[in-house]
C-alpha cells in the first residue's frame, strides 16, 4: 500500500534533524531526491506531462503520510503546482515548485503591452517561493479567461515570512512587471484560480488528517508510558475519555479528507466534498491539537519534544487555502439555496 511505503520513506528520510534544519532555512536536499525518485512529487499527473499517471487517491495517500510525519519541504506545494501545470496542458517543470495565489482575496492580472505582457497584483503567503525553481501563477486576463504564468523566483520582489510551523511563506509583489509571451499559457478556463484553491484546500485537508493521526498515535503511546499516581495516565478514565474524543476527531478528519479525494478521483464536481473536507478537518485540527497537548502535559509544550512539529502545522494549515468559515459559507450558501426540501438531497449527494 502506497501509504505504508510513504510512511517508511518519511520515517527514514525526514527525521527531527531534517525538520529542524528546514525551519532554519536549509532546504532538505537529500529527502527531496528520495521523494523525486519514489515518484511522490506528481503522483496524479499524466505521464506525458511529467507525472506518474496515478489516481488522485495516490496523492491523498502520500499527503496523509507526509502530514503524519510532519515532512519538511514543499512537497504539497510542488504537487499543487504540478496539478496546475497539467490542468493547463503544460509539462510539469522539474524541481521544487511554488504556486500563487493561495488565498481567496489575492488576484493577479495580466495585460498585453506592446507584444509582451504586464503582470499586476500581489500574492501573499506563497509557500516556499524562494526555494522553488519556478513559481506558477494564475492570472486573470480580463477577457474572461485565465493564464498560467511561469517565473523564476529570482526576478520577483519577495518579502519573507513563515507560518507557525516555520514553513516559508512569502509575499510576491508585481507592479508593472514585464514578461515575455513565452512565459504565458492562456487557458479558456474562467475559474482556474478557484479550482487551484479547491485543490490546495483538499491537499491541506489530507495533510491535516495525517497530522491528526500522528498526534493520536503519539498521545496514545505517551499515555501508556507516562506514570503518575503509580499508574500509566492512560489508565485514568478522564484521560481515556479525552483520547476517545481525539480518536473521533481523527476518524472524522480522515473520512472527510478521503471523501474529497474520492470525489476528485470520480471526476465531475468535487466542490462540495472539498468544502466538507476543509471545513471538517480544520475543525478537527483545532480540537485534536488541543487534546494532544493536554494529554502530553508540559512535556509536549517543550521545543525538545516532537509533538509541536505536528500541532504547529495543524494550526497553520487550517488557515491556509481558506479557513473553516470560508468553506462552511460555501456549503451553507448551497444549502440555503437548496432550501428545506432540497437539503437532504444535497447532503446525500456529497
Amino acid at each position, binding site marked *: 500500500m502506497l501509504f505504508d511505503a510513504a510512511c517508511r520513506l518519511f520515517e527514514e528520510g525526514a527525521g527531527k534533524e531534517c525538520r529542524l534544519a528546514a525551519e532554519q532555512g536549509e532546504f532538505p536536499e537529500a529527502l527531496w531526491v528520495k521523494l523525486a525518485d519514489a515518484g511522490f512529487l506528481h503522483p496524479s499527473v499524466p505521464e506525458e506531462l511529467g507525472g506518474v499517471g496515478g489516481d488522485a487517491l495516490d496523492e491523498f495517500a502520500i499527503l496523509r503520510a507526509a502530514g503524519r510525519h510532519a515532512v519538511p519541504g514543499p512537497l504539497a506545494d510542488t504537487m499543487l503546482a504540478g496539478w496546475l501545470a497539467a490542468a493547463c496542458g503544460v509539462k510539469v517543470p522539474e524541481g521544487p515548485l511554488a504556486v500563487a495565489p493561495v488565498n481567496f482575496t489575492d488576484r493577479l492580472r495580466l495585460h498585453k503591452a506592446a507584444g509582451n505582457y504586464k503582470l499586476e497584483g500581489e500574492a501573499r503567503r506563497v509557500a516556499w517561493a524562494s526555494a522553488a525553481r519556478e513559481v506558477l501563477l494564475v492570472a486573470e486576463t480580463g477577457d474572461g479567461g485565465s493564464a498560467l504564468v511561469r517565473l523564476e523566483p529570482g526576478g520577483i520582489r519577495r518579502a519573507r515570512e513563515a507560518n507557525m510551523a516555520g514553513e516559508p511563506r512569502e509575499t510576491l509583489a508585481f507592479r508593472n512587471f514585464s514578461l515575455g509571451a513565452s512565459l504565458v499559457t492562456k487557458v479558456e478556463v474562467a475559474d482556474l484560480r478557484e479550482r487551484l484553491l479547491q485543490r490546495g484546500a483538499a491537499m491541506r485537508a489530507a495533510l491535516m488528517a495525517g497530522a491528526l493521526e500522528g498526534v493520536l498515535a503519539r498521545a496514545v503511546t505517551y499515555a501508556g508510558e507516562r506514570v503518575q499516581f503509580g499508574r500509566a495516565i492512560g489508565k485514568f478514565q478522564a484521560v*481515556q475519555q479525552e483520547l476517545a474524543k481525539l480518536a473521533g476527531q481523527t476518524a472524522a478528519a480522515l473520512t472527510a479528507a478521503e471523501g474529497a479525494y474520492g470525489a476528485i478521483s470520480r471526476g465531475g464536481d468535487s466542490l462540495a466534498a472539498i468544502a466538507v473536507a476543509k471545513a*471538517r478537518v480544520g475543525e478537527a485540527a483545532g480540537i485534536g491539537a488541543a487534546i494532544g497537548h493536554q494529554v502530553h502535559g508540559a512535556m509536549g509544550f517543550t521545543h525538545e519534544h516532537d509533538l509541536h512539529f505536528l500541532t504547529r502545522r495543524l494550526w497553520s494549515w487550517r488557515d491556509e487555502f481558506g479557513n473553516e468559515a470560508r468553506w462552511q459559507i460555501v456549503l451553507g450558501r448551497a444549502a*440555503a439555496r437548496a432550501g428545506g426540501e432540497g437539503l437532504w438531497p444535497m447532503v446525500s449527494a456529497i
Partner: protein
Amino acid sequence: MYQGLNFEAVSLPPGAEAFRAEVKSFIHEHLAGMKPVARADSWNGFSAEFSRKLGARGWIGMTWPKKYGGAERSALERYVLLEELLAAGAPVGAHWIADRQSGPLLLRFGTEAQRAEFLPRIARGELYMCIGMSEPDSGSDLAAVRTRAVRSNEGWRVNGRKLWTSYAHRCHGMILFCRTGAKEEDRHGGMSQFLVDLDWPGITIRPILNIAGEHHFNEIIFEDVLVPFDRLVGQEGQGWAQVMNELAFERSGPERFLSAFALFQELVRALGPEPGERAEAAIGRLVAHLATLRRMSISVAGQLQAGRTPDVEAALVKDLGTGFEQELPEVARLLLESEPFAGSADGFAAALAQTMYYAPSFTLRGGTREILRGIIARGLGLR
C-alpha cells in the same frame, strides 16, 4: 496496541440511486403533509399502519432470506432505505427494534422454528418487539441485571423488573436478557436471552412519562412468568456474547445522526435562500459534519456487510453522531428569533422544542457517551 481506525471508503452499490428514487416516491405518496413536529419525533414516531405499508413493500427485514419473509437485498440498500425514511421523519418506531435487532438476533441465534414463526410476521410489519435489557439497578452496567429465569418442569420461571422499555405497551414481544446461572467469577457468564410475549400471565406493564410528558418508556414487572423452553434464544449462558454481537448494528446506523434532521430542515426553510454569512457558516458547518458522519456510517455498514465486526468504529460513529444531534438545536436557536414551543403553529419553533426535549436521550440510549468512549479507549489499547 493502537492499530489505527478503519473508515475505508465504501460506495453504495449500483442501483442504489434508482432504489432511493423508489423510496422517495413511496414517502411522498404516504407522508405528504406530515407536520414538522411529528417529523421531529424521528424514529420515536409509532404508526402500525405505516409499518404494515413498509412491510407490504418488502422493506422490513429486507436483507433476510426470502424463506423468512425477507427480500434478500443488500445491507447497503437497506442503508439507503433507512436514511431516506429518517430524513423524511417517517414514523418507523413500531417495527424499528424488530427490524434492526430482534430479527437479526433470531436469524443468527434462533431455532429454525423461532425463525419460521416470528420473522415473516416481523417482515410484514405486524409484529413489534422491544428490548429487555435495562433494569432499575442495571443501566450502563448491563452485567448487573437481577431479573432471573429459573428452570422448572414446565419451562423457565421469570421474576424481576425491566426499565426504560420503549413502546412495551404497544409491542407484542420482547427479547429478554436475564440471569439463568449463578453469579460466577466471570460476571458476564450465566446470562441468557428469551423471546417473551408481552401478554403472558404475570407480566405487568406500567407507563413512565418522559420529560416531554409523552409515554414511550415503561416499567415491566415479571412475576412468576412461565416461559416455554422453546423460547430460549441461542444458548443458555451465552446471552452476553449474543448481546455484544447486536451492538455494532445498533450503534452505527443513520439513526445516530439523523434524529434531529427535521429541525435542521425547518431551520434551513425558515432562514430562506439568502440568510447572510453568519447563518451560512453555521449551517454549512452542520452540513460538513453531517456529510462526514454519513460517510463514516456507510463505511461501517459496508464492513458489517463484509462480515467484519467494527465495534470500535461503530462506537465512534455513535459518539460523534449523537453529539452532532445534540448540538443541532443549540446552533439552530441562535440563528432565528424564536421561542421553542412544541404546540406552536410555526414549524421551526415546534421542531426546536421537540428536539430539545429529546436531545438528552440521544447520548444515553444505546450506550451512554461515557460507555462508548470506554469502548473506544479499549480499541486504542488503553484498557
